[in-house]
């Protein structure tokens, strides 16, 4: 059989067809599973120096995309980026997610939240788009209203805020924003009513109370003074008012804690004398940032407060050696040495602390106390003068100095 006849035979042609179809199917299957360039990022997408934990989370999120690219997996990476303030990366991921799921308002909402910092017009446009898909979330109306107010579209802002208020059971943040609009419109009485309502709401934190007081202070008191809750009740309030429920921000909220937050938690626990929990929190902070001398400092101080004075001293000594410019470390060492009754060592440590930071009021106070205990009156006098130069309005210190001078005069 000739080559020509071979190719033209019907059986052969049939076999070629089948083979081609099979080959196409195999290739298509492979390419659907692996699509080069669509889940890979350019190397410069993420900056260097991110924490190891974050790098691991990013890698996991990318693997999820590679396995099953979807709006959800792209959005999850975007949320991770947004939570850790990698905002250009987050924006890219959300746009990708939105293109895959154009009817899902989540990603557009998150784009709007990010835009609030830099482009309020864009933020409003994003929220408008969200509302075209889903009008049921009060937070969208609130954010939109707040953004509109900031760009001077006051009537539109009011409409949005009224909607938000109705949907959120008159949330204090919304009422405060509405009060501000009333003030701008010259209706101080209406503003006052709204502010009082906001402040008396159990959801209001100290931030709303403070801001409300400032807004009210500017208003003429035409009628009775505002019925603000007594200041003693303020101590039961949270520091910040919780925002309206934002279910689409849940993913962003799940992020690695920032060192400042961990430090604040640790400090709070220590001040409440929950020392065991405070120690654990400081240790956690040290694991996050080994270079954080402050965490080491306070860890040692808590050890001292729990009676582990020797251990505290050993730890703070290491900090002084590792961070020789850290005034706080030397001050802490001085405090521990004073606690142990070793006043000469304490003086030396505290003097090093104030040499490193001459306006270190607490270290000067500690020195003053030791000098007074040790009846070193000249040195005590010098410390009083230095402290009064640092904190001239400290009336208690002024009174103490006056008494010190009287006693000194009598003894002379």
């Amino acid at each position: 059989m000739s080559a020509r006849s071979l190719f033209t035979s019907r059986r052969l042609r049939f076999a070629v067809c089948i083979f081609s179809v099979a080959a196409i199917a195999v290739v298509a299957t492979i390419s659907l599973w692996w699509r080069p360039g669509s889940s890979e990022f350019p190397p410069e997408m993420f900056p260097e120096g991110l924490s190891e934990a974050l790098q691991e989370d990013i890698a996991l999120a990318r693997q999820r995309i590679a396995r099953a690219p979807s709006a959800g997996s792209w959005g999850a990476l975007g949320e991770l980026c947004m939570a850790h303030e990698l905002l250009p990366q987050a924006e890219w991921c959300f746009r990708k997610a939105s293109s895959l799921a154009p009817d899902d308002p989540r990603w557009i909402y998150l784009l709007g939240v990010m835009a609030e910092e830099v482009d309020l017009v864009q933020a409003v446009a994003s929220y408008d788009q969200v509302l075209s898909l889903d009008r049921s979330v009060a937070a969208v109306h609130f954010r939109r209203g707040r953004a509109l107010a900031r760009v001077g579209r006051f009537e539109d802002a009011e409409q949005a805020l009224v909607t938000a208020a109705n949907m959120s059971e008159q949330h204090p943040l919304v009422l405060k924003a509405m009060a501000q609009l009333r003030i701008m419109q010259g209706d101080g009485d209406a503003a006052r009513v709204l502010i009082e309502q906001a402040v008396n709401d159990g959801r209001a934190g100290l931030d709303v109370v403070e801001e409300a007081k400032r807004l009210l202070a500017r208003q003429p008191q035409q009628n009775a003074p505002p019925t603000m809750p007594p200041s003693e009740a303020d101590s039961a309030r949270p520091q910040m008012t919780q925002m309206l429920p934002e279910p689409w921000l849940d993913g962003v909220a799940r992020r690695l804690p920032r060192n400042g937050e961990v430090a604040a938690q640790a400090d709070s626990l220590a001040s409440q004398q929950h020392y065991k929990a405070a120690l654990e929190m400081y240790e956690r902070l040290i694991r996050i940032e080994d270079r954080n001398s402050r965490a080491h400092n306070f860890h040692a101080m808590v050890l001292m407060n729990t009676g582990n004075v020797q251990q505290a001293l050993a730890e703070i000594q290491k900090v002084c050696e590792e961070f020789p410019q850290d005034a706080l470390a030397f001050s802490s060492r001085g405090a521990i040495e004073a606690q142990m009754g070793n006043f000469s060592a304490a003086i030396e440590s505290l003097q090093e602390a104030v040499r490193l930071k001459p306006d270190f009021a607490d270290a000067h106070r500690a020195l003053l106390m030791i000098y007074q205990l040790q009846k070193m009156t000249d040195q005590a006098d010098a410390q009083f003068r230095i402290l009064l130069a640092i904190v001239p309005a400290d009336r208690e210190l002024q009174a103490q100095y006056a008494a010190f001078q009287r006693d000194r005069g009598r003894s002379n």
Partner: protein
Amino acid sequence: MITFQSRQNHGTTVDLAKSRSFPVLHLVLSTVVVWSSSGCIQEESAPTLSNDGPGKSESSIRQRKVFTDVAKAVGLSFVHRAGSSQSYEFPRSMGSGCAWLDANGDHRLDMLLVNGGEEIDIGNIGQMASLYLQNPDGQFIDFSKESGLTGTGYGMGVAVGDIDNDGDVDIYLTKYGADQLFLNDGEGHFTDETQESGIVNPQWSTAAAFTDINHDGWLDLVVANYVDYFPGTFCADAGGRQDFCGPQDFHGTSNRLFMNLGSSEDGKVRFEDHSATSGIAAEPGKSLGIVCRDFNYDGEIDIFFANDGEPNQLWIQRNGTFTNEAVIRGAAVNRFGESEANMGTVVGDFCGDAEPDLLVTHLSGEMNTLWQGDSNGNFRDRTSEFQFGSDGLPFTGFGIVATDLDCDGGLDLIVANGKVKRDRHRKHATDGFWTDYAERNQIFLRVEDDFQELNDGTDGFCGPAEVSRGLAMGDFDRDGDFDLLVTNAGGMARLYRNDSEKTGHWLTVALQDSKRQRTVLGARVTVIADARQWSAEVLTHTSYLSSHEPTVHFGLGAVSVLTSVEVVWPDEPLMVEVFAAPATDQRVDLIRGSGIERRAASVEEVP
């Protein structure tokens, strides 16, 4: 068997499997399908993250020539020392200021640029400021070594004023470290007289102002103190990378008022600390900006402190005692009741109602806030009603000045920008430590009732992206408009000559007090024409950490004929001295006592 239909035979079914062209067609088809399946036809390119940052694109902003960078051309070669590039010590991010002054009494403007330091170390000894003297040919020579401006610490800001009334200007330098007071010998040689003066301010100070608080003819000193900073404090961004700390990480400190007791017989100046007795030290703050003027028009100087991340303070003076009335006067927080990161300050009539308003620069994510002032010293936040609010949102503003660039009668705004933390909205840079913090400056031209952003080109003020901080105005080339001196953290200082086209008439007024042999800071000048009048005060200490030339410039628009000029001198707030009308389009020197009339001031005229 698979049958393919071809339309080439116009609907006739053809068994393509039998066709001679089938193998070729089949090959082509397969290739196309495989190729498209492999993704070679890209549905979407890989992400390209913007390195430009947010804000309007340059192409969308109105282009117009305003300023030209002439630093090199005139001999300015100052590079701000900001310590080790690996260090994230907080003072590094705050930059340093600059000043225009006539250091050697030759009636030509000289430049002073405050330096940071090699390390953030209170004991660090070095050249605290560089002094450039202007020659008759307009060139500047570096007089730093001869100036005597050395000391310890990390330099921040500068205040300029004749504190001993000997006819030359003296200098106060604020620092992270102990502040310094330098007296001038009249020829640009300065001597450190801090210890002799009695001024002790050990805390981290930022802005400072010389002003005659008690109208006794001697300049007193107001100093803004910032935070109780602990060097070595580790702060990180949300990604875990080390970054500069912010004011929220530390406690605030008290501001200071030092009263000038006048020169003693030995010629030494003495100051007394009235911070506690005056009341201004009663409330700590985190102050970066200062304005000293009579805010409530009762004839007494009051003090405004711009606080970073906290409510501002407006200390109203009543017979030497101060009370903070910022909240009730509406200047503490923005219209939403929120504290902002308040930094640079400027005073001027921005709302067009002939009343001075207050504008303060802020962080990105916050608008630069404009508080409209009224005749009772109350303020109302009107930022939302002006475009510059939104246009400034992505930027972190520091130095700010207001001047009528085109002399059309309306004040224009100029803002020096630069971030304090890595720009979260921009792809992170790999070329240089400060690139992540750099951003372009902004000019806002007054157009009818609003402000329109302007771009003056790549060699102009808005051209380079830098970490700008200090901004001082001075007409160094005496051509009737203010030029700009700009400091950049860790970078070259810039001198921007004003080359904008004047569309109207103008007048520059310098004041002299022959009795005290010094210019008069805080005086109010009113230029009067038939149908209009313009007012301005000699406030050299506004903006950020900087000091301006002590003159006032008026853009007069179409007005070419004036009727008079009136001056309210700061130590006689209840008197007005009237001067004969000068011709427009010139600089005039008005000497106290040479006016044609003196009369009692009305309430509106009291500065």
